[in-house]
């Protein structure tokens, strides 16, 4: 049975998100390509808007919020971005098991499409599309009903300043650092030397590339049963209790040792090791004059269990350098070869510490 290809054009809020939720619940499999006519914030299932966003700013600027049923981070969706969503039954022969394999498989067509447009992109595990070390697109995924959904977007343009204002910041210093970090860490087609494709060119290129992987598709319109289900789903997804349901917690503790020098004690979120067990690890961060000057791991377990870290950041100077780069907005450990299951929790820990550090 051939899969479906839906080129939905520019969808308004909240149809942009309700569309693939409806497809998945109906078991309509295939590829959805669309853009949006509105700007709005879209949060992953684990992200609570109360923790993530400056809700007053969003309200004052008429920026809507949607909390999707799949993973991934907080993104500002707006005109100038193209979104692709793969919806496949979890038992479909094309569907591998496990998030890493799924992202790897279904992001390859995106990389290939960008390559055919002259852009040398690669996948930074788990799920970023990266050009010259900067993120051109992010992705999230998960299961909705009996289907697996992978959703992502390519940035032709992005209002980074606006995004930095939507994200909750403890103070203006933090927001400016965030803005600088995003400017250094995110790119768009508009800022690349390659010719910026039109939305239609990008859409056609992506459709071709995905069909190489998924086979020829049958074009269908976003109508009938899908739009009916979207209308049924809308009250649920737009309800306050859905939007503000519980999200993940961020833990950490900052101890001021003396003026200008803080010790941050934080448990790493657990490293999935390559050996026998998941290990809870401690790490201390030394701060001076608002800069990270050192990182000391409490436990030799890190060295014992996390082989991919050996030779990469275990040297103190390398750790410090990694943190310095993070502080200036360069993504930690930008090396495609690193084990994603190690990189992500560690990068997340550093990012959290970065936030805590600025809060003090």
């Amino acid at each position: 049975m051939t899969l479906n290809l839906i080129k939905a054009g520019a969808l308004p809020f909240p149809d942009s998100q309700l569309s693939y939720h409806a497809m998945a619940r109906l078991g309509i499999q295939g590829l959805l390509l669309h853009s949006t006519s509105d700007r709005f914030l879209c949060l992953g299932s684990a992200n609570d808007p109360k923790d993530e966003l400056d809700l007053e700013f969003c309200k004052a600027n008429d920026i809507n919020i949607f909390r999707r049923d799949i993973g991934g981070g907080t993104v500002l969706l707006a005109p100038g971005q193209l979104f692709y969503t793969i919806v496949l039954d979890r038992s479909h022969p094309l569907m591998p098991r496990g998030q890493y394999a799924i992202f790897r498989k279904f992001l390859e067509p995106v990389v290939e499409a960008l390559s055919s447009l002259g852009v040398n992109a690669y996948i930074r595990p788990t799920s970023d599309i990266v050009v010259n070390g900067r993120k051109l697109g992010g992705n999230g995924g998960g299961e909705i009903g009996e289907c697996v959904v992978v959703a992502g977007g390519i940035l032709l343009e992005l209002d980074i300043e606006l995004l930095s204002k939507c994200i909750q910041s403890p103070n203006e210093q933090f927001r400016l650092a965030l803005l600088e970090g995003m400017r250094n860490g995110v790119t768009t087609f508009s800022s690349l030397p390659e010719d910026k494709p039109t939305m239609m060119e990008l859409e056609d290129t992506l459709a071709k590339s995905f069909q190489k992987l998924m086979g020829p598709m049958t074009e269908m319109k976003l109508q009938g049963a899908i739009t009916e289900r979207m209308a049924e789903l809308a009250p649920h997804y737009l309800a306050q209790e859905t939007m503000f349901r519980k999200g993940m917690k961020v833990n950490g503790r900052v101890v001021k040792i003396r003026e200008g020098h803080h010790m941050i004690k934080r448990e790493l979120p657990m490293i999935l090791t390559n050996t026998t067990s998941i290990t809870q690890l401690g790490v201390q961060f030394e701060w001076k004059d608002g800069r990270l000057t050192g990182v000391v791991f409490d436990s030799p377990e890190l060295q014992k269990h996390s082989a991919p870290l050996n030779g990469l950041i275990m040297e103190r100077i390398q750790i410090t350098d990694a943190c310095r780069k993070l502080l200036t907005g360069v993504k930690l450990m930008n090396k495609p070869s690193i084990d994603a299951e190690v990189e992500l929790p560690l990068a997340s820990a550093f990012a959290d510490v970065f936030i805590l550090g600025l809060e003090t």
Partner: protein
Amino acid sequence: MLFQNKYDLPDELYYQAEHTYARVEGDIVVIGASDYAAKLAGTIKLVTTYDIDEEIFQNKPFGKLSSGKWNGAMRSPISGVIVEINEEADDDPRLINQDPYGEGWIIKVRPSDLQNDLARLQKGGTPEFLKFMEKDFADKSAQGLIKD
């Protein structure tokens, strides 16, 4: 490396094909994610389940585990009605990674068809279970999802 050396999969438990477990405690069944599932999921950041008194069905979702980027369904090993949710794991999902069979249990269920459901599950330590796990482990290792 053998999967037995990497994962704690107690013989007395029953396992669903997607690596949730069932532990029978009198007329109640404790359900959680196996050590294998918890490690594959990475750091679990959020767990959501159906509500108390909701009916759940064997091999169908009863909640989700989120690792941030991914929001995956947990499938129930048995059918029944949820009678208790582990609030501590709900509050600190890392318990599921740290102690999946102890403090990291997820829900307790009053089963509706226990003997038939158990007959369709894999019992820990049996040759069939070991064979199933060996294949799953080999497949995931081949995909690069598990490294020594």
